[in-house]
């Protein structure tokens, strides 16, 4: 068992966790399946790209040769990605949540509208930026750390670290803050929440902005290995969805565990000789089907705090 593989697996899991937890959170708090999460991912990538093209030449000139340069670049790109992801989340809120959240057949209609938004956004990005893949500036360089004898690429380390920080911030926001309390109250009893002065519309907005921001962060972090392109969001969306399902929709710890499992599985599959990289998806699907047959509600499918 190669230790470098563990790092690789952790890297993947981190990205997947960002997406899957966003999806799981959205479903459990407002009952909407966000199929436009992939589009958030792509939009955030392009947002970071545009911001980079605008701001980085100036920053490069100002901080030439300074040790702060990579850090500032990282912060700028991450902020741009997170910002555009959050804005796109707000757009989805306005279009897919507000008009129909208390009308008939909301779950299915929300899914359809977000799917349509996904479709339209990908095509719009295609039309505006063209199909060519573009790369974000390399932030971390190509060096490696040597951590306990394991070679870790700078970007892998940064990804794992950044994700851990982001996730703990979001989860503690959920658990400890007032808004998080309101969200959890709304999940469990909509009428009781209304009588406590909690408005579904006002609470859904930060949730959608935060999950969009998480997708944006994932986009920027993943952009070190994957190019920015209009279709870049498709695979992360599918992976994020199936991990959210595997973890049990609505269970944030379940999604985290599932992300770790899937990341490990993906890393392992790539290494095993007769499987190789191409069988990754098939193996993952097989694994997921197996788990869902044994535990239909997913790994963490708790029934107390979740919406069915």
């Amino acid at each position, binding site marked *: 068992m190669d230790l470098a593989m563990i790092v690789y697996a952790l890297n993947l899991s981190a990205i997947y966790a960002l997406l899957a937890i966003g999806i799981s959170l959205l479903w459990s708090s407002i009952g909407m399946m966000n199929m436009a999460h992939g589009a958030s991912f792509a939009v955030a990538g392009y947002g970071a790209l545009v911001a980079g093209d605008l701001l980085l030449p100036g920053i490069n000139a100002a901080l030439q040769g300074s040790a702060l340069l990579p850090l500032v670049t990282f912060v700028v790109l991450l902020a741009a990605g997170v910002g555009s992801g959050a804005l796109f989340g707000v757009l989805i809120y306005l279009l897919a949540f507000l008009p129909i959240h*208390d*009308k008939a057949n909301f779950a299915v209609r929300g899914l359809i509208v977000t799917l349509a938004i996904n479709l339209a956004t990908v095509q719009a990005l295609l039309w505006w930026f063209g199909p060519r893949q573009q790369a974000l500036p390399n932030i971390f360089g190509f060096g490696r750390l040597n951590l306990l004898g394991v070679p870790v690429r700078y970007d892998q380390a940064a990804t794992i670290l950044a994700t851990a920080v982001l996730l703990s911030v979001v989860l503690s926001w959920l658990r400890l803050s*007032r808004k998080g*309390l*309101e969200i*959890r*109250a709304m999940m*469990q*009893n*909509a*009428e*009781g*929440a*209304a*009588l*406590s*002065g*909690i*408005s579904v*519309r*006002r609470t859904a907005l930060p949730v959608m902005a935060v999950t969009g921001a998480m997708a944006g962060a994932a986009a920027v972090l993943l952009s070190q290995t994957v190019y920015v392109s209009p279709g870049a969001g498709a695979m992360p969306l599918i992976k994020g969805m199936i991990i959210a399902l595997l973890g049990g929709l609505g269970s944030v710890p379940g999604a985290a565990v599932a992300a770790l499992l899937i990341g490990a599985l993906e890393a392992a599959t790539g290494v095993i000789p007769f499987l190789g990289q191409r069988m990754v998806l098939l193996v993952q699907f097989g694994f997921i089907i197996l788990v869902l047959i044994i535990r239909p509600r997913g790994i963490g499918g708790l029934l*107390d*705090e979740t919406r069915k």
Partner: protein
Amino acid sequence: MSVVLEINDLSAGYGPLRVLHEINLSVQRGERLAIVGLNGHGKTTLFRAITHLVGWQRGSIRFDGTEIGGARSLGEGRRTPGIVRLGVAMTPQGDAIFPGLTVRQHLDCGAWSRRAWKERAKRREAIFDLFPPLRKLENTVVGTLSGGERRMVSVGRALMTEARLYLIDEPSLGLAPIISQRVVAALREIDVMDGAMIIAEQNVSLLDGQVDRMIGMHAGRLRGDVGHVELG
């Protein structure tokens, strides 16, 4: 403004069913009012009409001079948080609890105003003084509590922020007599100097001496305005 709540010609119902027929009611400041009647005659519907949770309603409801009634044009429940934030606190029939949150979190949910949130620890203590059994249940998940304890949590949640109008729906429903007496006594201790309290109840004798005015509700109409009632 001495009239806290003024209801004029209120009719309300669900779908093709009409439950309330031309209700006229006026509640003064500092008044404790009880609406008594059997189940199914419209007491809960009246409260739900005030907080905009019914299917449809016609007629005017003025709270502190502001009109909060009106024909339903938006979905039901959309205006409820707004009405709550104007100062109407309702304890619904059946509690409407959050089964996964603890007692402490429930009470915090009730503190929706900025001041109440800042002072929430102090107010929680006040609620625990009002309902002593809750003190040692502070960190228990409410889904596991008994009926009486849930009722106390539900009432306590409505008390966390000062409200001008308290609407308590069936405080004794499903409770043992001793516990319902305790709940009603606790309600009596709430200060309504600047507002009013309306209690909807089936059990008339429970409210004997606890309220200033009693009105009967039968088949969707208010009948019989009685002052301080001596029963027995």
